[in-house]
């Protein structure tokens, strides 16, 4: 008897029933507060700065002036755009880690006509050509691993990841082809004087059009995932491929179709980066947002409207971190440490939303219940 008792584990983990929304949010809020408190303690111990000042500085870095709000919104739009591209693929449990590469290829698709045709054809046609090339380039870059997955069941995680490096090298090659001046290995602002291929400004604001396009895209993806047959097929394939096959869904077709969509949206974001934002192409222009986007999408459970919030959170953390480093003369890494702690708590609390931990004592009760 004693023997069996000692075999009872100290605690064990069970899956929770769905929590009511307010309790779920209460847990999330508590997690954020705990994260903030730990950040505060670490700040005081390591750099001896009042943590409240640090949080104030972070807020000011992201929202301190109207220009900063615009820049934050623009960064959010780009990150959200890439996350929207990744969401359908991840919903299908297709690990598309190639957001960076697909967006970079989109940048290349937009840059090539901008340089080669700039000033030779009417601007509106040029912009259309750039858009089409960017979307196609992104889609093709996603199609390659998707086709291999559908045909030979290759590992898409590794495949899409490696495609990022191939894309970076291709971009580096074309930067040397179009470099200015010779040997400098950079392109500089393209068509600075003619503004050919630049997205028009709305009013006085350069970023407004980018933001509007992404807002429309958010709504479209929401409807696509929620209310269309395609969206339904994606979730069925994600839940269980066998079930999907059983009910007559052509799994291969869904994989290829969804990845084409994923890559095409990445391409669109690449177009926005080149034509609407930077008017140049560099190997680091996407800045790892193909990976940050994965986090944005997962944190929001692939709901495009929640993704607005999660992308705001991540952009806020990164812009806040950069402001801390300037104001307090600290390295950027300090802000990243704080952001990392907060994310750890936020992601960690999702565990407690899905599972509960039962200690030895409560296990007994469970037994009695059963």
């Amino acid at each position, binding site marked *: 008897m004693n023997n069996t008792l000692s075999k009872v584990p100290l605690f064990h983990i069970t899956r929770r029933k769905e929590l009511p929304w307010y309790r779920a949010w209460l847990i999330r809020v508590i997690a*954020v507060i705990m994260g903030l408190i730990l950040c505060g303690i670490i700040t005081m111990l390591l750099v001896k700065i009042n943590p409240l000042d640090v949080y104030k500085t972070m807020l000011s870095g992201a*929202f301190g002036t109207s*220009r900063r709000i615009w820049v934050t919104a623009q960064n959010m739009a780009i990150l959200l755009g890439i996350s929207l591209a990744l969401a359908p693929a991840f919903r299908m449990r297709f690990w598309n880690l190639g957001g960076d590469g697909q967006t970079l290829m989109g940048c290349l698709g937009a840059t090539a006509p901008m340089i080669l045709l700039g000033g030779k054809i009417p601007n509106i046609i040029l912009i259309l050509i750039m858009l089409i090339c960017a979307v196609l380039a992104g889609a093709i870059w996603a199609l390659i691993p998707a086709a291999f997955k559908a045909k030979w069941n290759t590992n898409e995680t590794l495949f899409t990841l490696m495609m990022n490096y191939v894309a970076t090298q291709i971009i580096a090659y074309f930067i040397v082809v179009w470099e200015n001046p010779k*040997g400098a290995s*950079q392109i500089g602002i393209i068509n600075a004087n003619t503004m050919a291929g630049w997205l028009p400004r709305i009013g006085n604001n350069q970023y407004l059009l980018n933001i509007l396009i992404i807002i429309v895209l958010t709504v479209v993806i929401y409807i696509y995932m929620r209310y269309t047959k395609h969206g339904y097929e994606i979730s069925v394939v994600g839940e269980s491929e066998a079930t999907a096959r059983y009910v007559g869904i052509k799994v291969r077709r869904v994989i290829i179709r969804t990845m084409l969509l994923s890559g095409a949206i990445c391409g669109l974001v690449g177009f926005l980066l080149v034509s609407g934002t930077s*008017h140049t192409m560099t190997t680091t222009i996407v800045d790892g947002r193909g990976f940050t986007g994965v986090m944005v999408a997962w944190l929001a459970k692939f709901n495009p409207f929640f993704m607005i919030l999660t992308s705001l959170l991540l952009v806020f953390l990164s812009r806040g971190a950069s402001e801390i480093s*300037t104001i307090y003369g600290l390295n*950027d890494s300090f802000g990243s440490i704080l952001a990392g702690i907060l994310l750890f708590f936020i992601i960690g609390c999702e565990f407690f939303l899905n599972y509960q931990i039962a200690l030895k004592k409560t296990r007994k009760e469970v037994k009695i219940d059963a």
Partner: protein
Amino acid sequence: MKGMKKVFALVLVAIFAVGMLAACGKKEEPAPAGSGSSAAPAASTMKVGLICLHDENSTYDLNFIKGFTEACEAEGVEYLIRTNIGETQDCYDTAVDLADKGCTLICADSFGHEDYMIQAAKEFPDVQFCHATGTKAHTENLPNYANAFASIYEGRFLAGVAAGMKLNEMIAAGKITADQAKMGYVGAFTYAEVISGYTSFYLGAKSVCPTVTMDVTFTGSWYDPAAEQEGAETLIKRGCALISQHADSLGAPTACENAGVPNVSYNGSTQAAGPNTFIVSSRINWAPYYQYAIQCVKAGKAVDKDWTGTLETDSVQLTEVNEAVAAEGTAAAIEEVKAKLASGELKVFDTTTFTKDGAPVTSYMADVDSDPAYEADTEVIIDGAFAESKFRSAPYFDIQIDGITLLDTAF
């Protein structure tokens, strides 16, 4: 009990939401007030900003941050440093944000920042923008946009003298023959700044060791420790008796230390990485330029469109010579040549000291005004020497002279 919990939860959420809003609201108000108040004392304490491509972990950016803070402290002005700013719209956003924050002088350190600095300069005509290593100030012709560089080729030449003396020592000791006096050079790109750098280094060595030749390899990156180390190892295998580099990592010095091959460094001393092989290093000291620019803005004067720091302004510096490795009398010889360069008695790119395809260069059109077609536009051979950094501060020497072999030109 359950009802209580519900109420408690809602109250907590509400408190948090209000707290967030209040914090945001609060932030909105003092921000304009803050920029206003920073504009007000601008008369007493001026504010300046620096935009860096990386942070202090890169020797290149560290060199700028050091010079900038030194100048700001000497002039008693407030400063803001923004690190890790890419060569994209990010640079423009940062520059105008610094202007919003009341900076009256804004500087950037990376070549690719230039176009975005020009864009910001057009939007803020009352703010002075200074861009190091850029090439467009003289063609853009904006009253508030300026480029700067230093005659680092003079520093390279002096470092080359130290290298040549070391080779002579090795020849005298019978370690190599005069014909085997070959140096290796690890460059980043086939960019004028790099070509100007390795050519002046080579000419410095040749001025004391006439039989010297040099192999150059390119890594295709300004900072790639593995590629730089590999490049240096390749050069050593090809029989190079001494290595120098124009790239920002410790790759080449480390390769030299491992192989026991003497190294002439750049951007600052690398003696810690190569105590038994480091000879000397040249570097640009940016403090004099930033001090000059701050003084100009304080006095309401325009900053020189193309400012070139020299040995005289202390913008071009050599580190202490590592006596344990350098040939005897190196420090004295460097001082002697330095005086000759300063007086103009000696010119780095004297056309009698080098040939191209076996013939002396008597006329050369350089691409001084940047354009996509790389059109050569300016005659730069003046009074028997290549007039480097005369028509613009950034180097434009890009002649492939005899004695130097390029192993690869992919980049």
